[in-house]
């Protein structure tokens, strides 16, 4: 899923300060699964903001609505009425959703309430970890199922750097060295020979480096 974290209360309060009627717009897909912007988080944030504004002597009205997701018009249009009756929208979707809502409702300020961070998984209870950078050319099978582009801090393709220690990365001792995992897995599956092969430089055009990307599926267009 796309993982993100709700912005701080201080930052959100500041963004909503100029308005007297705002809509907290939640998203029921990725941000719900990482507890940043789903229906529950919207309800909690709304209650906290009401208390905060009341304390400041303001009468800000906080409206709440959560739609399935904010990256598709089919669901965004359900929010039209709620958006129309508010002065601003705090979107708790990922960066993609915030922009989509902003583009569909140009006249209303659409503010981000979540900091979107990475493409990841729920590794274990409470722990989300980054797994994929969207390089556009997946060859994780070459590396025993571990991506060195997203999981090695130096994107090394030909083995670990000199800072790998005790299976951990030099950048953050809490992070596993991706290459240690690749080597361990290769050993487990008897494929250490594969590690001797020279992996050539990457063509980064398929990644973000080639510019903002598009996917056109003509087969789905009527």
């Amino acid at each position, binding site marked *: 899923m796309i993982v993100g974290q709700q912005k*701080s*209360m*201080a930052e959100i*309060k500041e963004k909503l300060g100029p308005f007297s009627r705002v809509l907290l717009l939640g998203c029921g897909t990725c941000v719900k699964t990482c507890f940043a912007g789903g229906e*529950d988080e919207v*309800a*909690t944030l709304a*209650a*906290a*903001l*009401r*208390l*905060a504004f*009341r*304390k400041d002597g303001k009468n800000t009205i906080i409206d709440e609505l959560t739609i399935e997701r904010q990256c598709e018009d089919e669901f965004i249009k359900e929010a039209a009425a709620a958006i129309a009756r508010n002065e601003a929208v705090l979107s708790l979707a990922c960066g993609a959703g915030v922009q989509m809502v902003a583009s569909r409702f140009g006249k209303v300020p659409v503010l981000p309430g979540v900091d979107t961070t990475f493409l990841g998984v729920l590794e274990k209870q409470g722990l989300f970890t980054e797994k994929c950078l969207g390089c556009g050319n997946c060859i994780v099978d070459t590396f025993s199922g571990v991506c060195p582009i997203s999981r090695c801090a130096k994107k090394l393709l030909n083995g670990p750097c000199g800072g790998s220690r005790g299976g951990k990365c030099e950048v953050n001792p809490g992070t596993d060295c991706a290459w240690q995992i690749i080597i361990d897995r290769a050993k487990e599956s008897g494929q250490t020979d594969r590690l001797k092969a020279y992996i050539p430089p990457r063509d980064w055009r398929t990644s973000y480096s080639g510019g903002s990307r598009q996917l056109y599926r003509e087969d789905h267009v009527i």
Partner: protein
Amino acid sequence: MTTTTLTWPSAGESFREPQAAGRRITIFHCASAIGGITLSEDNSELRTVNMPCSSLTREVVLLKAFEAGADAVVVLVCPEGACHYLEGNIRARKRVAKVKKLLDEIGLDGRRLNIYNISPGDRSAVESIIGQTVSDLVALGPSPAC
């Protein structure tokens, strides 16, 4: 056992009497913790909410209690390890911790919200907790969000 269920009043609807300002307490308790204790219903200063499991005191529920006019909120749960639903009281503890922090961030003072582990049906513990909360409120004053 007499209990009151909290409905969600709109912002501004206060506990019954204006003189109760500064002394309004909402107590959430799980059915097991309260045991056979009776809490008075006709109390302008006290509201009690019976939860099937203390883990149901989700963040939004605790905040709504303050929105409804509480100056302090108490959560009563069984001792850890003795929860009827195994982890309910642990989840409640984490939720209370999160909301305390949120209350500090918005300037309401996290000390208005507290969680206590009590032996089921321990009447004197409940009375002492209520007494402590009332005395805390003398120092904290009325909730600034009322």
